[in-house]
């Protein structure tokens, strides 16, 4: 077209970014991507390669080493060798390397961007303006954490060798999210990128080599699920971090169950995008573009489920349709496009068939008549309205440029619809009313809540899911804890520290004195004393083996009732931390008032002398005080993210936590596990020590007199093996803490996979419950909360 013609047509024309340097980089390595192990390029043990394509053109980019178990073993061995040195150079030494990585990333930013777009199909604008700058930012930010780890993370040490498996939608960015905090905290890494997208990981390895990162600190094994499985199952990794589908996440949860490997999972989502009637609708439209047409909608936290207040739905849809008409699809290296190709043909087919299913189920489909390139895996931006909550597409992740929408009437209904999902990764809400925004944001089950914005990311803010979107956080200080462990954990004992009395049951010879009035300990559910559903009881012995009472034998229905009661007591999480502190102090006061009775009972059940029994009681009271104190002191944080906004890292209770108390630890074990949970606003269903069950049933009378709302603490006595499994399998419990056998720990972690409960188990090891490090503290509180990052841009 001549200048003259263009002057008339005012078309944009092509604006290609040159692929030359990236192509040259590939050519320099014979278009062959190899493992990077122990600082060396290594061919695959299998000798075989697979091909990787440019999804925009279908052209082969390179052949990729097909990794297997032997390759993974080599990489883990190299990482293990490098560990000692990497820890020894200290925080400052590591900071220098991470800083160098950040600088080199910036210096070569265009090469990284172009290669990323060629390999993944995402628009060059996104890799250039979003992915790569965030990658560099991540390494800068974590260079800082390496520098100050010593002061800022006292009591914590590196985990060791970390295995990391990342997806294809943000290949380099996910690498950064995984690698930067791991290296900063003194771990060494074996990373397995997605089979579709290995290129920038190899370029990153090359960068590590260039800056002289010590050999074996960062290792790269390429390949498909074979390499991934080998890595996940490797005995010598201390931690596995995974980003990908919920389906694979569940497999990994089960595979690592009982091994003691730390695990973080960042999984799928069906994130709500909530539009209230008083929002700036034109800005909402751009928010929609950023939510669902960013990276072709192949974003785990994509705002894919729009909820619109009925009063503005029609006008918003009209605006969105107009905006969609202006979206441009094209080659990922064209600087003037909005959407590139989907990553692979399989993905294209999946999206198409899901959209068809949506239409079959009653959704109204709208697609603009935009030009679609002939070659490549392109799918047009799509709006599906009238999608009801019961429709498949309201629940299933599409992972493509498809927005579904439904309407709501009131803020309460918006919250209910938003939370009507197994997922809980992110949420976006739009309103110009700050009262409404700050009312709704905490109610949403989502790890990130974006107010009047969407898909905001930064190294300083944690990112991660609620529910089946996974657990653990990446970014922010909260993300560091995923790559360290407390020193005290290494001190846990293989044998019980607190010892259960040994006795042989003795038969009491019936006498002729007037008997004491028979007392019937009951279970405690919903603030009421309750008889067991099954109608059975079991004997409780004192330290000498005499039967002194019978406690109820709880069964699955008792657990069901207890969980329902706990679920109903949701007000506890919403009450002020000050109020919770008041109640918990009051518990200590009432326990103290009945001190003699408890001293007697401790003594009777444990065989401790009075002095020792009183010492245990005193420690219990002290511990209750500690958690009362911490109720309003373990508080939230505001992150310094580089935008004009407030990023609130809000600590929220998990919800309902099932607790199986340590059998050997009596009242102290009960107090030490229940109190941190309720201090943070959780409700608990606790299965107390069987031997010491009478202390728990005595204790509910203390709870009754302490203004604790019914349902906050529920006590179900009975067999640990039976009840732990019912709890672990219960779908309506957010967290599960278990102190028991190794086998029981494995069971809990395996069963948790169904709904991605947050678990805390002891793998058959024993705490010293009298020790203040092992028996209380921030480690306990951290397990009792979830961190939600709420982004609130401001400015009138």
């Amino acid at each position, binding site marked *: 077209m001549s*200048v003259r013609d263009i002057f008339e047509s005012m078309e944009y024309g092509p604006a290609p970014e040159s692929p030359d340097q990236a192509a040259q980089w590939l050519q320099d390595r014979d278009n062959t991507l190899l493992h990077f192990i122990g600082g060396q390029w290594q061919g695959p043990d299998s000798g075989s390669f697979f091909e990787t394509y440019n999804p925009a053109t279908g052209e082969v980019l390179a052949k990729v080493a097909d990794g297997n178990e032997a390759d993974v073993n080599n990489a883990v061995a190299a990482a293990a060798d490098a560990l000692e040195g990497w820890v020894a150079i200290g925080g400052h030494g590591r900071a220098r390397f991470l800083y160098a990585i950040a600088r080199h990333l910036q210096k070569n930013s265009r090469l990284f961007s172009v290669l990323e777009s060629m390999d993944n199909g995402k628009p060059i604008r996104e890799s250039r303006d979003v992915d790569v700058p965030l990658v560099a930012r991540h390494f800068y930010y974590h260079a800082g954490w390496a520098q100050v780890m010593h002061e800022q993370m006292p009591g914590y040490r590196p985990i060791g060798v970390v295995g990391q498996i990342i997806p294809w939608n943000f290949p380099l960015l996910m690498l950064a999210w995984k690698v930067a905090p791991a290296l900063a905290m003194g771990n060494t890494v074996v990373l397995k990128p997605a089979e579709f997208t290995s290129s920038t990981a190899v370029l990153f390895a090359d960068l590590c080599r260039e800056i002289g990162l010590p050999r074996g600190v960062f290792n790269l094994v390429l390949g498909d699920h074979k390499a991934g499985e080998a890595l996940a199952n490797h005995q010598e990794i201390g931690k596995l971090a995974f980003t990908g589908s919920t389906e694979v996440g569940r497999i990994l949860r089960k595979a690592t169950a009982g091994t003691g490997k730390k695990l973080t999972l960042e999984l799928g989502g069906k994130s709500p995008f909530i539009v209230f009637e008083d929002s700036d609708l034109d800005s909402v439209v751009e928010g929609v573009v950023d939510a669902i047409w960013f990276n072709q909608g192949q974003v785990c936290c994509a705002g894919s489920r729009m909820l619109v207040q009925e009063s503005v739905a029609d006008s918003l849809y009209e605006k969105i349709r107009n905006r969609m008409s202006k979206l441009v699809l094209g080659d990922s290296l064209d600087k003037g496009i909005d959407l590139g190709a989907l990553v692979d043909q399989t993905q294209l087919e999946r999206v198409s068939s899901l959209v068809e299913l949506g239409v079959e189920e009653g959704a109204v489909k709208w697609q603009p008549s935009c030009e679609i390139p002939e070659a490549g895996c392109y799918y047009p931006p799509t709006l599906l309205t009238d999608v009801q909550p019961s429709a498949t597409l309201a629940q299933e992740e599409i992972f493509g440029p498809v927005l579904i929408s439904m309407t709501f009437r009131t803020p309460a209904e918006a919250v209910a619809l938003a939370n009507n999902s197994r997922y809980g990764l992110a949420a976006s809400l739009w309103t110009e009313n700050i009262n409404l925004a700050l009312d709704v944001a905490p109610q949403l089950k989502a790890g990130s809540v974006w107010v*009047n914005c969407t898909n905001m990311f930064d190294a300083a803010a944690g990112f991660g899911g609620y529910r089946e979107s996974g657990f653990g956080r990446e970014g922010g200080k909260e993300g560091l804890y995923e790559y360290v462990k407390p020193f005290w954990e290494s001190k846990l004992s293989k044998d019980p520290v607190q010892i259960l009395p040994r006795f042989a049951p003795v038969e009491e010879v019936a006498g002729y004195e007037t008997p004491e009035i028979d007392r019937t300990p009951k279970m405690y559910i919903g603030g009421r004393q309750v008889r067991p559903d099954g109608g059975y009881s079991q004997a409780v012995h004192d330290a000498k083996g005499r039967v002194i009472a019978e406690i109820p034998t709880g069964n699955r229905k008792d657990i069901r009732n207890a969980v329902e009661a706990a679920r109903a007591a949701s007000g506890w999480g919403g009450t002020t931390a000050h109020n919770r502190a008041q109640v918990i102090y009051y518990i200590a006061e009432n326990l103290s008032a009945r001190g003699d009775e408890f001293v007697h009972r401790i003594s009777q059940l444990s065989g401790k002398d009075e002095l020792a029994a009183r010492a245990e009681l005193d420690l219990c009271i002290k511990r209750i005080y500690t958690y009362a104190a911490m109720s309003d002191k373990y508080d939230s944080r505001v992150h310094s993210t580089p935008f004009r906004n407030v990023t609130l890292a809000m600590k929220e209770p998990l919800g309902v936590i099932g607790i199986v108390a340590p059998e050997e630890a009596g009242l102290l074990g009960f107090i030490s596990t229940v109190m941190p949970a309720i201090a943070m606003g959780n409700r608990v269903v606790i299965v107390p020590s069987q031997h010491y069950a009478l202390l728990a049933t005595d204790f509910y009378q203390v709870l009754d007199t302490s203004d604790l709302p019914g349902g906050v603490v529920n006590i179900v006595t009975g067999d640990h093996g039976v009840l732990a499994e019912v709890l672990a399998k219960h779908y309506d419990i957010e967290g599960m803490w278990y102190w028991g056998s190794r086998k029981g720990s494995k069971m809990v972690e395996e069963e948790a996979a169904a709904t991605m409960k947050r678990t805390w188990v002891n793998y058959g090891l024993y705490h010293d419950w009298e020790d203040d490090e092992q028996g209380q503290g921030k480690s306990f509180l951290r397990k009792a909360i979830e961190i939600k990052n709420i982004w609130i841009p401001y400015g009138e």
Partner: protein
Amino acid sequence: MTGAFESNVHSISAHDEHIQRNPGIDFNPDLFGRIRINRSAVERRAATIGTRRTVKKDYQAAWLLKALTCIDLTTLAGDDTPGKVRRLCQKAKRPVRKDILEDLGVADLGITTAAVCVYHNLIETAVNELEGTGIPVAAVSTGFPAGQIPLPLKLAQVSESVTAGAAEIDIVISRAMVLTGNWQGLYDEVKAYRNACGEAHLKTILATGELATLSNVAKASWVCMMAGADFIKTSTGKESVNATLPYSLVMVRAIRDYLDLTGFKIGYKPAGGISKSKEAINYLILMKEELGKQWLTPSLFRFGASSLLGDIERQLEHHVTGSYSAQYRHPVS
């Protein structure tokens, strides 16, 4: 004198062949009263206007030519003289060196700037200088730039300027009315200007940099359009903050909503501080993305600028020769 005026109006009408003038509508605060603009979101969108779309090579040259034809070539200084204005008008008639236009293959398109914009006292000079060219003369009015004079004087100035041959009147709104929420007052005032304009086109300058919030910018845009503005314009060029992409987004979105409601197309004129080719292209992209290609004509889009033209000339020469240009190689205005 009257003849000159008529020829000017005629030339505008030629531009406006398909565009029906906005007669205005009744004052209705319900249409804008609840508008809330989210500044952060607007700024985010504005920041990607120039990163989501771009024009290269011949496309860039063509777009720069288009930008040039949308310029209201402006001089608004206390030391303006007839001599200065005559020079400006000649530049408006021949904004780019002929050899460059020939190399671009557009020498016969009759490329000129959209208008010449001056103070009242210079209207006559400009009208005479531009006679027969079809280039309209715009005059700033109503106590420009601050507008702090009595309404009758403002109206008299509008009438005088129209009589003097101005085909376009760039009025300044009373910022105080916006800041005190006197929307009815603002409507009445602008409507009176519109009546005083007669056939001349009314451009309403909001002085966005003095309206405090983007919500006020949106509301003021609405009131001006309701009162019959042909164009809404950001700034006088004399405020400390003049045209920006965020202000522009808010204003063109108001134009879009007004179009949806009434069917009338309102023009948009960012003014002040736009001096680089790259910025000009970003504004054109914004117009095309938010309102459509139809707005990429001088009848619906203007730049209020003085130094932008020089930068465009240099870019065009670079496009033609491959060598970066120098300012002295292009005739001054």
